[in-house]
């Protein structure tokens, strides 16, 4: 087995997701190569080389990969990946964008959101918002898959793989990067936070999220939201936890003013400990919560902030 892992990175930094995808690759077993496609991405490449179990890092350092445009990255991954038995990437918005395109170029299926590796060709993945788990067996010559990183533990940074530069540029000419508006936050990212405090429609407006931010800062937590809160414009889209937003599994998830729609539960029900605070004692969120507090959040959150 020869496995190609596509690194998740921001050019100057390797994302923690990559170490988790390498863990999934290790579960398949075989020789693991990491491909870093970016621009001025040497720091990310060096970090990838330190991941345990990785034997080689390939670096495609070119301006056409700076913004991870799917049109360009998929051409590169299809070209490099055709010599591998498996191509893996994190189920992030970046890989969800370029990897299905790559799979189509290779004329193979993609297996999305793999949560378990049974063997080199058999994998489990959730569908129907996580209400069912399918075990699928692939007969394709190249297995292309995205990995749900919240269920794999990162490999250690104890490796020392060789780093090889690729002299390649696959500029498609189909798409141009215009701009990015990234949310700046000092708090932990949802994907890596040990504790997450999330707010829903019950927060009533964006200003009230300040209470949750205070709580998050006391706990060293990240701040998330339900779809209802994002749709209502209380907070930006990148905070959405759920079926089509971020899938998280922190040690502690505190759901505040969230009723617990199927789509939200799909994004957080693998959390180790779930706390729900909602004034409606019948809210479905209490059916998955380890600790439920039926109380008005506008009383409970200030009290929590005072006593913690």
């Amino acid at each position: 087995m020869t496995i190609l892992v596509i690194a998740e990175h921001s050019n100057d930094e390797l994302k923690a997701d990559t170490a988790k995808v390498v863990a999934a690759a290790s579960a398949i077993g075989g020789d693991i190569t990491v491909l870093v496609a970016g621009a001025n991405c040497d720091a990310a490449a060096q970090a990838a080389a330190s991941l345990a179990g990785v034997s080689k890092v390939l670096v495609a350092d070119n301006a056409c990969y700076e913004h991870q445009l799917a049109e360009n990255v998929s051409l590169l991954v299809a070209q490099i990946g055709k010599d591998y038995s498996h191509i893996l990437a994190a189920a992030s918005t970046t890989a969800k964008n370029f990897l299905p395109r790559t799979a189509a170029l290779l004329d193979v299926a993609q297996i999305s959101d793999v949560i378990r590796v049974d063997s080199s060709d058999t994998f489990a993945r959730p569908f129907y918002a996580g209400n069912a788990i399918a075990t699928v067996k692939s007969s394709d010559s190249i297995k292309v898959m995205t990995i749900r990183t919240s269920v794999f533990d990162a490999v250690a940074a104890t490796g020392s793989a060789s780093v090889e530069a690729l002299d390649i540029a696959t500029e498609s000419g189909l798409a141009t990067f215009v701009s990015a508006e990234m949310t700046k936050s000092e708090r932990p990212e949802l994907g890596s936070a040990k504790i997450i405090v999330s707010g829903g429609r019950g927060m009533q407006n964006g200003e009230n999220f300040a209470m949750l931010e205070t709580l998050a800062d006391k706990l060293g937590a990240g701040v998330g939201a339900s779809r209802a809160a994002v749709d209502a414009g209380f907070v930006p889209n990148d905070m959405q936890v759920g079926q089509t937003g971020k899938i998280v599994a922190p040690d502690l998830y505190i759901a505040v003013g969230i009723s617990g729609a199927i789509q939200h539960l799909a994004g957080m029900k693998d959390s180790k400990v779930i706390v729900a605070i909602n004034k409606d004692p019948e809210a479905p969120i209490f059916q998955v919560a380890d600790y439920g507090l039926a109380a008005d959040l506008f009383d409970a959150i200030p009290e929590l902030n005072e006593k913690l």
Partner: protein
Amino acid sequence: MKILVPIKRVVDANVKVRVKSDNTDVDLSNLKMAINPFCEIAVEEAVRLKEAGVATEIIAVTVGEKVCQEQLRTALALGADRGILIETSEKVQPLTIAKLLQKVVEIEQPSIVLMGKQTIDGDNNQTGQMLAALTGMGQGTFASEVKVEGEKVLVTREVDGGLMTVELGLPAVITTDLRLNEPRYASLPNIMKAKRKPIDVKTPSDFGVEVTSGLAVVKVENPATRSAGVMVESVDELIAKLRNEAKVI
């Protein structure tokens, strides 16, 4: 400008499905079915582009059983001009759907293919990207804003860290995210009118596409269930539980 809107019939978003007792699949018998919510957003966006004078014709297309005509009628009632049903009783995977849509694109030559980023049954999030690859088009996935400017389109995309805007030449594939728009309800006159709009019925073999898959489902199981825990009476009790029992803070 023609817009092609691929849609899918799925179980209603508010229904919680159950796994069949023989673990072969989920049980969809007698469940309420609907147009996939992301597809509905795509139809709405196409209709808005037509209302704005950008688009001239909207074609809705779906792949599936005969009964999927119901969802095509929904799209027609929302403002699509005509429908295409590619009828098959087989389970069709994203790559095959993309190959069928590729044939429709070759025939219809749309300037934009607008479709949902994922369906809420398969949760694959693949078909639009695969279609873009097969047709050699650029792709604007997870769109929260679409602006057509001449022969180009600006697509603002919802990405993990925030928003990213890309410029694509036309034709292009755009997949919709939740914030792109809020779909309208079909009015009764429009529902009646939709009954008279044409639906062309084809089969995969009409397009020379074989329904195959590199993936076989071995089994379908229930996820690990989570049982309800305890209700606490006060903030003090909650803090005590989290500190002493769960030991997470």
